[in-house]
């Protein structure tokens, strides 16, 4: 049966663990995987530009020895004016073995999956789902903390609009997390429905909300930073007042655990001071790198090649 990856829920926990395992295997010996996707074509359809995500997928496919066709933003595509997404996808799926798509409209990848002859991977639809970011976060945690279970995780910054944080929170909850510390200004608190969801579905996880990172940073095994956008604040004064509190710098890192890790989906705006880039606990660049390996594993799964080849 053909499978798509539209939202993190499309994968079971076991499937995620297997992807991580294979991603780590590729990471250790990328050469062994060169050529497993030879003769396969990836259609990389970016209806909205996102250089970082596009390059991550392109790099993953090229490292597997496959080919790429597609476009980097809707202006260069036939989809610019008039053509329905369904038509674009129907045609592109004749030209390729796998589709990776990013689209500004929420729900677009789900629509695409209904008309595609080949698997579709959602590389982000508006502020809705971004499952490969979640997979990237998971492989990073697994790589540095050895297991996904039993951690105390501090989520810092914009917890209201950042839906990739929402899906990471939901996913980590299913991996038996010990505690979530939610650090955000009042304006950007985790939405009520998610707090309720955690309370009802994972009552064993301790939840603590905090305003200041310095108050709680010493407890966290994982410090997950997010972008805080100025536009999210009601006024400039509030933003200036709060922005320092959400800036992770050397001083705050002194209070953090010795074995803690600092993650960030990148690009950062000014949530992380450059001075901590050299701190061994800062793993956000490694996180981007691991993102390529987990995408290689995912491409293998969707194409049923390499470790996923039918026996």
């Amino acid at each position, binding site marked *: 049966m053909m499978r798509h990856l539209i939202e993190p829920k499309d994968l079971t926990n076991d499937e995620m663990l297997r992807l991580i395992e294979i991603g780590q295997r590729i990471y250790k010996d990328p050469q062994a995987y060169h050529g497993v996707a030879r003769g396969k074509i990836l259609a990389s359809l970016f209806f909205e530009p996102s250089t970082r995500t596009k390059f991550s997928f392109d790099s993953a496919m090229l490292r597997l020895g496959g080919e790429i066709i597609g476009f980097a933003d809707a202006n260069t595509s036939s989809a610019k004016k008039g053509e329905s997404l*369904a038509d674009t996808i129907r045609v592109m799926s004749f030209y390729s073995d796998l589709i990776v798509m990013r689209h500004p*409209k*929420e729900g677009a990848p*789900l*629509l695409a999956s209904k008309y595609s002859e080949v698997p579709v991977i959602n590389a982000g639809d508006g502020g*809705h789902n971004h499952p490969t970011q979640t997979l990237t976060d998971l492989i990073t945690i697994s790589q540095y903390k050895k297991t996904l279970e039993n951690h105390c995780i501090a989520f810092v910054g914009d917890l209201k609009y950042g839906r990739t944080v929402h899906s990471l929170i939901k996913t980590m909850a299913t991996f038996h997390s010990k505690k979530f510390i939610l650090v955000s200004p009042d304006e950007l608190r985790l939405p009520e429905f998610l707090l309720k969801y955690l309370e009802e579905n994972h009552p064993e996880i301790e939840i603590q909300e905090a305003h200041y990172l310095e108050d709680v940073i010493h407890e966290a095994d994982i410090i997950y930073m997010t972008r805080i956008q100025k536009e999210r604040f009601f006024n400039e004064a509030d933003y200036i007042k709060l922005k320092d509190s959400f800036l992770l710098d050397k001083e705050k890192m002194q209070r953090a655990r010795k074995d803690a890790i600092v993650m960030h989906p990148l690009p950062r705006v000014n949530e992380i001071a450059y001075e901590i880039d050299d701190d061994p606990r800062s793993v956000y660049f490694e996180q981007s790198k691991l993102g390529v390996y987990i995408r290689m594993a995912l491409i293998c799964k969707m194409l049923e090649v390499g470790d996923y080849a039918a026996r």
Partner: protein
Amino acid sequence: MRLVNSIKNGIVIDHITKGRGLRVYHELKLDTIENTTVLLMNVGSDHLNKKDIIKIEGDFDLNHEILGLIDTNITVNLIENEKVVKKIFVEVPEKVSNLIKCQNPRCISHTDDYAKPVFTLVGKNGELQYQCSYCEEVTKVKFK
């Protein structure tokens, strides 16, 4: 007292909350069909218990979703040979398509004709809340 004769074969939409009959009539687009139809308003002698009734003679494919969104007091009677052969109590629909527009402006359903969302009932305290199958945002429905 009956202003209009009862129907032989067809549908009676009964116990419509007083004042909503016209709304039901329009939402079902009864002005566009060939069947003989009757809208009765303020039926009943008891001052407090007046109701509206719609009768449709002949075959008609009734959309229960619409009724459920407008008024859950409604009961639908199917009539054959002047006898009620089936009585259906209208309920708030669990799934709705077509009748609701997603309130999320970023939703694909607004820009692509192929995207026809199905909405799932996720809450009904005071107002009905339906979740879009595409963007998963919740749209509140006030059909009054």
